[in-house]
């Protein structure tokens, strides 16, 4: 099977420091891949090796069927990227920064810059110097440069950084539309796990330089633990009544992970009523991505 991104035993060492260790990552064409990891886990190092900015110590990276060569060769005309924080020449305007990118990408269409400015809602700032932009608009400029040449593959490091809530939704919809309607493959790292949860078809989790999990979002649903969350008028009495299910008191809640209780919450309700402490809240809750991620990386 052909992959948009494929890493084979990708490793990177800085002296004795292991930044990446035998990472075997597969990103399918047209999917949105969420790349998760704590700070220093190796996300940016992995992204930089995909873009030919860092030479692997071992293994290789294949992007759009081309092995990324140590000398910077790669299918760059088909790839848009945003690595770490965006960067731009502060004394040049938004338009001039993008015009440089247009020429460097050898895009013949002179309207490409205006089109991407409009797409990223930067029209009002087109003639402003990049150095005077707010961090949110600076991020938009970085995204505009990544999208300017209508790439087949987008490699984005924290694309939602510095954006306001409306901007986050806007960029999420833009990325989803690119992936779903135009078949663009999106590889994105993010620390906003809820964002990844909403966008990603597949998720890879990197920890201490190793890819510890790579799975479909649908499969993730099944892996996330579920629990029964209970609130009762008399928590102490409720805890005593539920002791067979190994309840845990968390703040004002009682949580139970026992499968019997999760599958039959009505049984728990009956138990509590019979114990004289009827539940005021009873809900089956699924672990969110953040909790799942933290559980894996502990």
């Amino acid at each position, binding site marked *: 099977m052909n992959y948009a991104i494929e890493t084979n035993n990708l490793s990177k060492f800085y002296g004795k420091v292991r930044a990446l260790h035998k990472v075997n990552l597969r990103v399918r064409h047209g999917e949105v891949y969420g790349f998760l990891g704590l700070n220093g886990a190796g996300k940016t190092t992995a992204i930089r090796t995909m873009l030919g900015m*860092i030479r692997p110590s071992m293994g290789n990276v294949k992007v759009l069927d081309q092995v990324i060569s*140590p000398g*910077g060769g790669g299918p760059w005309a088909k790839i848009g990227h945003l*690595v770490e924080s965006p960067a731009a020449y502060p004394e*040049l305007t938004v338009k001039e920064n993008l015009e440089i990118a247009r*020429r*460097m990408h*050898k895009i013949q269409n002179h309207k490409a810059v205006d089109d991407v400015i409009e797409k990223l809602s930067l029209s009002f700032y087109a003639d402003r110097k990049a150095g005077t932009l707010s961090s949110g608009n600076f991020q938009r400029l970085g995204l505009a*440069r990544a999208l300017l040449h209508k790439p087949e593959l987008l490699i984005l490091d924290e694309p939602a950084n510095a954006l306001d809530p409306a901007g986050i939704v806007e960029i999420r919809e833009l990325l989803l539309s690119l992936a779903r309607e135009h078949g663009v493959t999106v590889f994105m790292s993010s620390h906003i796990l809820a964002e990844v949860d909403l966008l990603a078809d597949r998720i890879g989790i990197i920890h201490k330089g190793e890819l510890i999990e790579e799975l479909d979002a649908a499969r993730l649903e099944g892996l996330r633990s579920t629990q029964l969350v209970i609130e009762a008028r008399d928590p102490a009495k409720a805890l005593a009544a539920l002791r067979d299910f190994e309840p845990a008191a968390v703040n004002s809640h009682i949580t139970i992970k026992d499968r019997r209780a999760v599958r039959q919450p009505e049984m728990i309700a009956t138990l509590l009523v019979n114990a004289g402490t009827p539940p005021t809240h009873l809900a089956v809750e699924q672990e969110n991505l953040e909790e799942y991620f933290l559980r894996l990386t502990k």
Partner: protein
Amino acid sequence: MKNFTAALWAEILKMRRSKVPLVSAIGFCMAPLAGGLFMIILKNPEAAKSFGLITAKAQLLTGTADWPSLFGFLAQAVAAGGMILFSIVTIWVFGREFSDHTVKELLALPTSREAIVTAKFVVITIWAVLATILIFGVEVAIGKLIVIPGWSNELLRTSFINILGTAILTIPLMSLVALIACAGRGYLAPFGWAILTLFIANLSVILGWGDWVPWAIPGLFSGAAGPRSEVLGTHSYIGLMITSLMGILALYHWWRFADQTK
């Protein structure tokens, strides 16, 4: 070629929009202004003293107020000042990509890294040549204004070749400044290097080895230590070329293979 044209267009735009090249060129104009001031003083030391332009110490100034002295002064100023000012512009052209973190936007592009480095060098060369022509023009205007003897078209031609030659011999040495700006990922290390090479150049000339030290060659070419045919040999130019070429090759190699983590 299109690769290079796009990169050159980008570098020229950055150069035009920045104040650094302009301020550096204005700074370079201090050389002909200082030359003009010395000519005024040498032409009429008593009047200069009465105007408070000089003190007793300045009477150490020797020479005559004429066109050969004026051009000679400018050539020496280009040799010393050029090394520093060309370095400043080189450090800015290369080092700014690391300080502004824009280097990562130059690495994964259809335009090759080699084309980008070459374009940077071309704009540095264009700037250095234009700045040298500018200060030469300013010096001619000042000389005409203060009216000094010794003008001839032949002197103008040989002085222009001398001054431009000094600048042209300085430019290739900027490859090492650029390399250190890139490897040091910023401004400080290459600036330290520029000062160090100026020091080494002066020391080597004092010790009599200047003809073997690439950074002393532009100064010796300018005539600062006597007629160039007496102080420089073919080995001097070859040494400068080899050193500069090694710098350029190392720079290309660095851009191609070094890990870019900034």
